[in-house]
């Protein structure tokens, strides 16, 4: 059954293509949907990327408008949990024409592909993207095998 998923995937790709065309014609089309693929599962939590860089893992998360004080990162073994809240930055005394950003809170948790050293994790927040560098534990690091 799962082997047929590629068909669905292709269908969604076609729909995305059509959507991007329509977006080109009508400015309004898809306006309220910030995600790149509007046909996929809609997510309330921020989008993330995970990269495996040999001896460490790197996680990137989109968190626009959230200051570092409003972000919480928890790590235990290979379990990573990120939560945060976005406060409204709407100033008082203004009439709102359009509010699409709003307030939100989110929690997202992952099972990482390997255990990481929680004490040596680095986190950096730049331009609304949170980057985590998670060093793998010694046993999980790749080992070069010499050919004898």
């Amino acid at each position, binding site marked *: 059954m799962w082997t047929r998923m590629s068909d669905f995937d292709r269908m969604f790709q076609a729909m995305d*293509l059509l959507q*991007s*065309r329509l*977006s*080109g014609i009508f*400015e309004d089309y*898809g*306006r*309220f949907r*910030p*995600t*790149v693929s509007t046909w996929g599962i809609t997510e309330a939590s921020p*989008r*993330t*990327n*995970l*990269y*495996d*860089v*040999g001896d460490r893992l*790197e996680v*990137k998360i*989109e*968190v*626009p*408008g*959230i*200051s570092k004080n409003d972000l919480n990162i928890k790590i235990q073994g290979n379990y990573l949990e990120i939560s945060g809240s976005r406060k409204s*930055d*709407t*100033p008082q*005394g*203004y*009439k*709102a*024409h*359009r*509010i*699409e*950003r709003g307030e939100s809170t989110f929690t997202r948790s992952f099972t990482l*592909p390997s255990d990481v050293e929680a004490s040596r994790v680095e986190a950096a*927040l730049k*331009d*609304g*993207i949170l980057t985590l560098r998670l060093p793998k534990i010694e046993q999980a690091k790749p080992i070069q095998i010499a050919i004898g």
Partner: protein
Amino acid sequence: MNEQKELALKQENLSERNRQIPTVAPVVDILENDDEILLFADMPGVSREDITVNIENGRLALSGVRKMSTAGAASWEEFGEVEYRRVFSVPQTINIGKVGAELKEGVLRLRLPKAEAAKPRQIEIKAS
């Protein structure tokens, strides 16, 4: 099927010749009071030098390109390089010389002050 593909390719070349990365509309808040219009747009990952704001003929065109430097093999990737682009209609009465822009935590904040002539004015009635 093949013909369709060719047609699709042709169209692609016409409208999106120089664009390899996808374009999305950023989510925005638009606020107004008597003195100014505020426009806040979420553009995570876009640096200051990759944002352009053009105002002319009552059109405000916003564009920001997110460049990503990535290393290693992606286990999953839910976002990537993208161009945030959106066009708004703004009143002609905006004082273009005094438009302010600020980028913080991936949010672009534009402050569009209204020209003096466009501000509402209380008219005092003089006793004759």
